[in-house]
């Protein structure tokens, strides 16, 4: 990892006494094998599952730390036969939960149970297209029909449902259909978007899955139009819609020679280590699923409170925001530097081998140099 002079005298920013949210990969198994999955095919990860009682023991610690929310993901959480027992443990320890799912295993029984808990913030289901042909092209035959049935089952039981649409090379021309299907036909209040990233299984399928520069251009234009058609109902924290909006702001600032953005010019993009932490299916505590190789401790052996407040690796990640972009050859002479935040350290790591590096995947100058235009 690169050493930076900026880190030598930097002080650790204030952090909360405990994370607000803890993300749990409760299942290392999945019934699908999506071509762009970030989770599987990570050599650093031991794909085993903790037994019920170890999770329940950990939930007591989370409750004592006043953690507010746990996010249940994986893998596919609905594959755990003890899912209800785990949710009961969350409830007993005064927390709320959400579930990140492919939607294909949701039935009336589990939906009715989830609704009855009154503690579910939402179940997020991944939908990639408005038809089986598009959706199943990356997620496997039959998955579209089952996922939609899963969404309808959740809706029937008044469980809050959100949908994540991951954009990739095979669905980029279906965005308008997806929006209409989700918002008009299924009557969801909102859906979020991102794009397939160079992580996990996606790395070996990158050539056929990742958005090309042209795809990205199409996606940005289309999503901006759809955002006007469906105000406030299409969201993004990353991917083409986020980039379309943020890159516009960067371009305006550059043209006006505006002062740096409040978080611009440094590796400030990732706020996750200040509010949340993750646990792998094998019980290893990690900063985030995108940084699954950065092991900070093990649940029920190491105190999460101690890890959260004092783990040197986690604090180094928090200090990343002190590293100026002008220390990187990659950023040299870039007019956008005062407005850039360096983006996701997880993608930066898989692309460059260094967490403390700007992510080349989300570089506006690179996008423009390769023929892209700001929409």
């Amino acid at each position, binding site marked *: 990892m690169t050493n930076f002079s900026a880190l030598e005298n930097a002080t650790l920013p*204030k952090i*909360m*006494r*405990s994370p*607000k949210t803890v993300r749990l990969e409760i299942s290392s198994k999945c019934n699908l094998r999506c071509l762009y999955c970030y989770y599987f095919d990570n050599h650093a990860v031991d794909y085993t599952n903790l037994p019920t009682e170890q999770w329940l023991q950990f939930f007591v610690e989370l409750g004592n730390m*006043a953690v*507010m929310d746990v996010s249940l993901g994986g893998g596919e959480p609905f594959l755990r036969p003890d899912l209800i027992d785990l949710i009961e443990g969350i*409830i007993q320890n*005064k*927390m*709320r939960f959400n579930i990140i799912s492919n939607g294909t295993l949701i039935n009336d029984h589990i939906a009715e149970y989830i609704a009855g808990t*009154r*503690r579910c*913030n939402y179940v997020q289901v991944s939908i990639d297209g408005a038809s089986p042909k598009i959706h199943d092209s990356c997620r496997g035959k039959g998955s579209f029909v089952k996922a939609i049935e899963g969404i309808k089952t959740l809706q029937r039981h008044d469980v809050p449902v959100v949908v994540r649409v991951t954009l990739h090379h095979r669905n980029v021309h279906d965005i308008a259909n997806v929006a209409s299907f989700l918002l008009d036909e299924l009557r969801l209040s909102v859906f979020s978007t991102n794009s397939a990233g160079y992580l996990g299984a996606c790395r070996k399928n990158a050539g056929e899955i990742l958005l090309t520069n042209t795809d990205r251009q199409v996606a940005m234009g289309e999503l901006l139009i759809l955002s006007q058609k469906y105000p406030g109902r299409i969201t993004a924290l990353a991917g083409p819609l986020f980039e379309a909006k943020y890159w516009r702001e960067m371009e305006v600032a550059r043209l006006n020679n505006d002062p740096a953005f409040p978080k611009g010019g440094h590796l400030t993009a990732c706020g996750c280590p200040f509010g949340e932490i993750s646990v792998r299916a094998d019980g290893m505590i990690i900063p985030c699923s995108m940084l699954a190789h950065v092991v900070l401790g093990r649940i029920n052996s190491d105190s999460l409170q101690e890890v959260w407040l004092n783990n040197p690796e986690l604090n180094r990640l928090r200090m990343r925001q002190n590293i100026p972009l002008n220390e990187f050859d990659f950023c040299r002479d870039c007019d956008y530097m005062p407005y850039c935040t360096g983006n996701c350290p997880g993608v930066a790591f898989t692309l460059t081998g260094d967490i403390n590096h700007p992510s080349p995947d989300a570089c506006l100058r690179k996008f423009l140099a390769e023929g892209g235009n700001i929409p």
Partner: protein
Amino acid sequence: MNKPKKTPVQNPLTVLRVEFDDWAILFDPDSAKTMGINPTGVAVWKLIDGQKEIEDIVKGVKEKFSDVSTSAEKEISDFIDELYRNGFIGYSLNGET
């Protein structure tokens, strides 16, 4: 006959989550309601034990903090009412005296 006195009682589900510099969040996991409170609010919250009446709580705050304003009694009473309206506490009625 005196009015029955109200004794605030914490909702046992409510979570006190201390964050920065003794500021905190009260959180009801059933309703998902949250309320940010300052260090004085945290002190008030900790004094709500189902036994103390509001005047006892005001007294407890005055003992803990040296610079308590003259309007403290009303402010604390209003704060406790706000906790009640948000479901973070209930009142037990001590009956007539």
